[in-house]
């Protein structure tokens, strides 16, 4: 969604009036890619309201229900942070599904990959003790990603080798994953000292820090070092992105030279990292907004945000993504261009599974009260993620928004039920309606008398025929 010059308010007619501004905003909105999803969401809520009205027999219930939903999702104590806690796995899983879709693969197996990622991460987190976080935490994250990736690679291999359709095999792999984790938790990997059936607790250094615990965590210099390294990495990326643009904008100011040498970027990165290392422990001690010890929001949020940027970069800025999208959009043309279909099926599924596995990892390391994997560890996140990904049209940044929508609804549902007596399962109805309208844009266009967009959008086949990779 870009703001073109013509859609900006016309300032030629004297002082810009408010009507002009609104019109310009409207014009921008109708042309932007969030327009149709917004209409779909709005329509779903109106229809959902009608359903509540009809079933409860009173219009007041509708407002009570939506008021409760909104308050539960955002304004009650810890409402916003609990919504974000649910948003994090949604983001990761939907990103996984989006990568699959872009490569022409319908990965329904994210739920299973989520479980496998959770168990491999728990294993890595629990089996090492006393290793500093700067090593242990990245290792555990990687273990979760690797578990999910390997689990997803099995159906990918079957598809590439035999043409077995991934929709069928990933569903079957889901059940295997559920039973396998149950077996591991209750058998070989059970914590013998715990009363409940659960795995051992992960080492404190492998946990994803809660926001309220960050000042305490940073008092350990090794933890501060981890943060310093992360900040240095971020600074490096920013420098790499910004320097060539500065050089183009202001030529002859030495930017071009800096853009080309590694030293300038590395130096900048080192400086930022060192500053973070030195200052952050003290600063967070002085003032820190998150003090509630029951607040579950954790730094996985940053991992999820970074993952969204990484997926966007991978899909649209790299040769790897170019190949994946080519295979997804037209495998025959990919073969013509000399791209290996097999390799990209394996790669696409593995990346998809890695993201799903990381979601499972974060639930254990950041959310689970016992910081372990209990026997009854059900999420249902994976299936919602398919809807989220479709709502966002597989756009990583759209996924951030739609994940928050679904996370907020999931979190607000309880207060809605309490407030109005409307069953919280009405949320599922709302989500189904959103999905219906997103999947069938002609319905929305017909409702609002909109014209079909000119030209062809970049489309993704949700799934192709059963005949393998033809």
């Amino acid at each position, binding site marked *: 969604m870009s703001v073109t010059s013509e859609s900006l308010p016309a300032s030629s007619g004297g002082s810009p009036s408010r009507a002009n501004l609104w019109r310009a905003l409207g014009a921008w909105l109708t042309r932007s890619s969030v327009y149709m999803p917004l209409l779909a969401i709005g329509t779903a809520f109106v229809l959902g309201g009608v359903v509540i009205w009809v079933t409860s027999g009173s219009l007041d219930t509708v407002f009570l229900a939506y008021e409760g939903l909104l308050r539960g999702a955002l304004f009650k104590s810890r409402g916003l942070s609990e919504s974000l806690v649910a948003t994090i796995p949604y983001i990761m899983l939907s990103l996984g599904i989006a990568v699959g879709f872009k490569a022409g693969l319908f990965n329904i197996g994210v739920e299973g990959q989520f479980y496998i990622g959770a168990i491999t991460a728990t294993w890595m987190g629990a089996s090492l003790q006393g290793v500093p976080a700067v090593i242990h935490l990245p290792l555990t994250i990687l273990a979760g990603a690797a578990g999910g990736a390997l689990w997803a690679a099995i159906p990918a291999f079957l598809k590439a080798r035999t043409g077995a359709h991934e929709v069928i095999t990933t569903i079957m792999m889901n059940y295997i994953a559920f039973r396998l984790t149950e077996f591991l938790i209750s058998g070989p990997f059970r914590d013998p000292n715990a009363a409940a059936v659960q795995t051992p607790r992960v080492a404190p250094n492998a946990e994803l820090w809660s926001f309220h615990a960050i000042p305490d965590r940073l008092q350990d210099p090794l933890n501060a070092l981890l943060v310093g390294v992360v900040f240095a990495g971020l600074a490096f990326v920013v420098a790499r992105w910004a320097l060539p643009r500065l050089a183009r904008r202001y030529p002859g100011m030495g930017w071009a030279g800096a853009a080309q040498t590694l030293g300038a970027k590395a130096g900048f990165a080192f400086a930022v990292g060192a500053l973070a290392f030195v200052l952050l422990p003290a600063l967070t001690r002085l003032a820190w907004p998150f003090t509630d010890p029951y607040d579950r929001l954790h730094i996985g949020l940053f991992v999820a945000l970074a993952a969204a940027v990484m997926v966007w970069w991978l899909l649209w*800025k*790299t*040769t*790897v993504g*170019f*190949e994946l*999208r*080519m295979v997804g*959009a*037209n495998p*025959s*043309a*990919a*073969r*013509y*261009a*000399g*791209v*290996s279909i097999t390799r990209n099926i394996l790669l696409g599924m593995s990346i998809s599974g890695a993201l799903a596995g990381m979601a499972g990892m974060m639930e254990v390391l950041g959310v689970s009260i016992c910081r372990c994997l209990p026997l009854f560890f059900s999420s249902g996140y994976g299936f919602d993620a398919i809807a989220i990904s479709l709502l966002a049209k597989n756009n990583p940044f759209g996924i951030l928004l739609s994940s928050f929508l679904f996370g907020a609804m999931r979190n607000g549902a309880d207060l809605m039920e309490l407030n109005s007596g409307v069953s919280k399962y009405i949320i599922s109805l709302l989500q189904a309606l959103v999905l219906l309208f997103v999947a069938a844009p002609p319905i929305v266009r017909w409702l609002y008398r909109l014209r079909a967009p*000119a*030209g*062809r*959008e*970049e*489309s993704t086949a949700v799934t192709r025929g059963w005949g393998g990779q033809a």
Partner: protein
Amino acid sequence: MTPALQAIGITKRFPGVLANDHVNFELERGQIHALLGENGAGKSTLMNILYGLYQPDAGEIRINGQTVTIASPHDAIARGIGMVHQHFMLVPPLTVAENIILGQELNVPATRPLGPLAVLHRREASRRIRELSHQYGLDVDPDAYVRDLPVGAQQRVEIVKALYRSADILILDEPTAVLTPQEADELFVIMRGLAQQGKSIVFITHKLREVFAVADRISVMRAGQMVGSLSPAEATREKLAEMMVGRKVILAIDKEWAHPAQPLLQVENLRVMDDRQHMSVDGVSFDVRAGEILGIAGVQGNGQTELAEALTGLRKAVAGRIHMAGHDMTHAHTRQMIEAGLAHVPEDRQKHGLVLSFSVRDNIVLCQYYQAPYARGVELQFPVIEDYAARLVHLFDVRTPGILTAVGSLSGGNQQKVIVARELTRLLSHHPEQDGVAPILIASQPTRGLDVGSIEFIHRQLVRARDQGAAVLLISAELDEIMTLSDRIAVMYKGHILATLDAATATREQLGLLMAGIVHGEDGADHNRSSIHP
């Protein structure tokens, strides 16, 4: 005599385009009226208005002298107008009869006890279909399944479908685009028969040869306007081409004598199977030298597709050898071949040549996106790619709103230009002297379905590639194309190359006989090659 169909002052405006600008069109009873024009000239818009798919902004339509409003295709059918679309509207798993009565099955007599719920009148329908196909010389079996029929037969089903609905006026939208020359000739015979029995036919095309073969009257459209209407006697190919394009068109390509050098592509005894495990290329050998065009003539389906696929790494060769610039490439991967200098204009541009949802920019680097300078490491270098794409779009005159436009929204001719731009530019960046890298171009049906202007352009590009030292293999079902462009012509029949002729001396008749599999034997008798070859 009042004309069967008259369109007077038809105007149709779409956002940003005046698709029909006061168009007049007249169709006499029993006439075959060819409507010529480039892609986007407004032919289809006019026909869609006559068929009730669009409403005109101005103008009137008269059928047999009576002014009518055609609000929907249903209306059009009721008034005796039938349309055969370029892409058939058939249901493959149903039989011919079922397809034909589809949508009409509810027209049962009201006296029947169960009304619409009653049994389908399949037998009655079959009988009428047989009658119709007999009357008009259309060979259609009502009980055959559509999925089993070849394209030509499917088209006949579409025609019968229109006749079954009592059409007196038939609109055929580019009916020959999907046909082989032989099938097209059969279609012309059918059209003649229909016209003789009083049906009136509008025949939309952009192939000049066909117009002369079948039309009684020729109308030409350009940029939404009717440029003129004339009889075949008054028309010449040059005149029609000029009317269509709006400027003089060189139909015959001027080309210098070839200066062939060393062989770049050598094929020995190649054998390739098709998808049904049938040996469709059966022992083919030939050389293509730097600086020459070798044309492969032949009726479609004689192994040309599989040959091209084997030469480009898309299909495994069962036996034989492929050498490129002296290197054995028989079992090479497509990417290795591309890196060895191979360029390929594929037969099916939408399936193989382009990713329709990708932008023009991305399609321009479809084979090179991973190479310097288009990528550094894994990162695509968009400024470089965009400069390159903009340059090619300009050089090859691709008509596109911009390089970020999806290729799928361009016209067929411009899509093909994107492919030709990409492949030729890549091809001519190689030099024959470079070790192991040789410019070889495989062009399969490079101008299929294109308009005159684009055909002329692409032909010139192929000759330019030859003149710059590329080895060009041209595979085409269009004999005219083969004869104008090639330096040597090989004729393919049932997986064999029957003969390789010098293009300077080969005649149309000679090639036609070879394409039909008839080899002139030494004793003067004609042999059918397939009967003497195991």
